[in-house]
């Protein structure tokens, strides 16, 4: 069975819907018109990525003197572009990639762990003030990030953490939406009877969480991990305001920096090729992750939708 097929079965298993109900909808006559419309739309969504891949094989001169949507006859320069990306300015791009990976992995693991424990706590315990606290968490989804990032910047600068790695990692630990997803997931995935049985056996609450709760919410945990990973990997505003040492930049801020150097044109038009190739290289890890972890993000997104 394929990955997608398994994911589908898992998902519909969770939702209590028999798989054959889904299968029944398959096997209808395909519509050529609908397929054609969707393939045209697919071209639109693929076009920029195709352009990016093609353009990363061109030197700056070729960029300006060949048709943008096809390869240039004047030579295939992908390798020299990649080499230039990795060596330009003392190899700063390598630090950027490393920083992005570090920020994304550390913050996402932290955020997902906090959300998993918190979500389990909200789903499986009744304590005074629970609904008020949860309402506050949900309401905070509406708070715009500037309203947070700006004062956080000011506060962190008071304690000397601005322009350090912590300035990115610490604020990224907050994930109210992650907590919401984990609460929903834990409510469905962890049977109360199991917790009760473990309590009767004399297990402590933390042990129950570690050995039963966390295992059962693991798929939800991976989903929240992935969503936070993507959010931190793609974050731009926070590192833009927190950092001014280029060695600490994540790849998003670094590329934007190269781009403004290229466009202000101060004799550095030569940068276009490394902005383009650097962009291509920066999206490969996430695209690969998405392709291989399809079932997790599909599970997670559908989780959000079903409960919405």
């Amino acid at each position, binding site marked *: 069975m394929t990955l997608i097929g398994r994911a589908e079965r898992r998902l519909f298993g969770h939702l209590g819907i028999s798989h054959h109900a889904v299968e029944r909808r398959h096997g209808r006559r395909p519509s050529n018109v*609908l397929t054609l419309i969707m393939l045209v739309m697919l071209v639109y969504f693929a076009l920029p990525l195709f352009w990016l891949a093609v353009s990363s094989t061109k030197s700056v001169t070729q960029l300006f003197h060949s048709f943008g949507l096809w390869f240039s006859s004047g030579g295939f320069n992908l390798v020299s572009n990649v080499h230039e990306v990795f060596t330009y300015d003392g190899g700063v791009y390598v630090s950027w990639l490393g920083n992005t990976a570090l920020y994304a992995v550390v913050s996402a693991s932290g955020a997902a762990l906090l959300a998993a424990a918190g979500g389990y706590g909200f789903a499986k315990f009744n304590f005074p003030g629970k609904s008020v606290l949860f309402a506050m968490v949900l309401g905070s989804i509406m708070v715009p990030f500037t309203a947070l990032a700006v004062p956080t910047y000011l506060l962190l600068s008071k304690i000397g953490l601005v322009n350090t790695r912590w300035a990115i990692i610490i604020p990224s630990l907050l994930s109210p939406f992650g907590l919401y997803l984990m609460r929903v997931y834990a409510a469905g995935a962890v049977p109360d009877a199991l917790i009760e049985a473990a309590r009767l056996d004399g297990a402590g609450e933390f042990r129950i969480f570690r050995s039963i709760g966390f295992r059962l919410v693991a798929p939800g945990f991976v989903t929240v991990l992935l969503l936070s990973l993507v959010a931190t990997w793609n974050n731009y505003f926070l590192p833009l305001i927190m950092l001014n040492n280029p060695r600490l930049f994540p790849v998003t801020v670094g590329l934007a920096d190269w781009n403004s150097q290229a466009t202000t044109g101060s004799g550095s038009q030569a940068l276009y090729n490394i902005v383009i190739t650097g962009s291509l290289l920066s999206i490969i890890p996430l695209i690969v992750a998405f392709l291989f972890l399809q079932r997790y993000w599909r599970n997670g997104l559908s989780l959000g939708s079903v409960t919405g």
Partner: protein
Amino acid sequence: MSVGAQIRTAPPSGSGLRTARASVPGGRRKKHGTKGYLFIAPFLLVFVVLLLVPLGYSFYISLFRTQIVGGTTFVGLTNYRAALSDTLFRSGLARVGRFILVQTPVMLGFALFFALALDSARLRFARLIRLGVFLPYAVPSIVAALMWGYLYGPSFGPFAQIAHDLGTTAPGFLSSQWMLASIGNIVTWEFTGYNMIVIYAALQAIPSELYDAAAVDGAGGIRTAWSVKIPIIRPVLQLLVFFSLIGTFQLFSEPDIMAAIAPTVIGNAYTPNLYAYNLIFTDQEVNYAAAVSFLLAFVILVLSYSVILLTNRRNKRS
């Protein structure tokens, strides 16, 4: 508060999760209830330190004014009054408002259409299409803006090249006349797939018994989509409108990249977030920037709350 209310009043969409939660025996949980604090404590600590404290601090400094001569003085709501009559802030807000009115319906319309097409099971290459439309979600908004910015560009953008070969000129995608639409296209490209996947998952969760009745009535695919599927997934669509609203009001990365590519068009207050950023880092007006951010948060809060109230009332009526 509000999202919770919306979720609770949302009609059940055939989810087993909901019933699982409802059938929890309440009595036994009380005994262990307060231990729940231990699990939520780490999250709450982060929540207080990274959300409540900064928000409170932001409000606090927004009540002051810092001048080179005279230092910091308490000015009450003066910064808010100034922001409300600040044409730069207001025009940015209005611009984002116009953006939302057009871009959100277009994006969600396409996402809904794609999801219905996938759900109809009458599509060839369904998996390829689903993946291809979703893939832009994995691309950072910075990279999306860079790609489209270069594609739009007059120097080596393919649209300009094609137009040139045809002996004409392409529209000035980066001119002030087209810029908002050009950014709208970037955002649509980035997020249609995400919305599509969420809607598609909701559609797949509809029990097929519901279609049998429609089939008996002789309803065709389009009729079924319109009068069975869309009403059932309405809460999901509302949630997506809500998230789009919040996200779009905070537009920053795309206009910031466009500002590097077309500086004269974007300026320093194209969107409220860009304005707040420039107030701090270009003009050093920290107190005023805090007031602007706070007002933006307030606008978002009021608008999302009214969206929820409005849709909840309609849900109750129907």
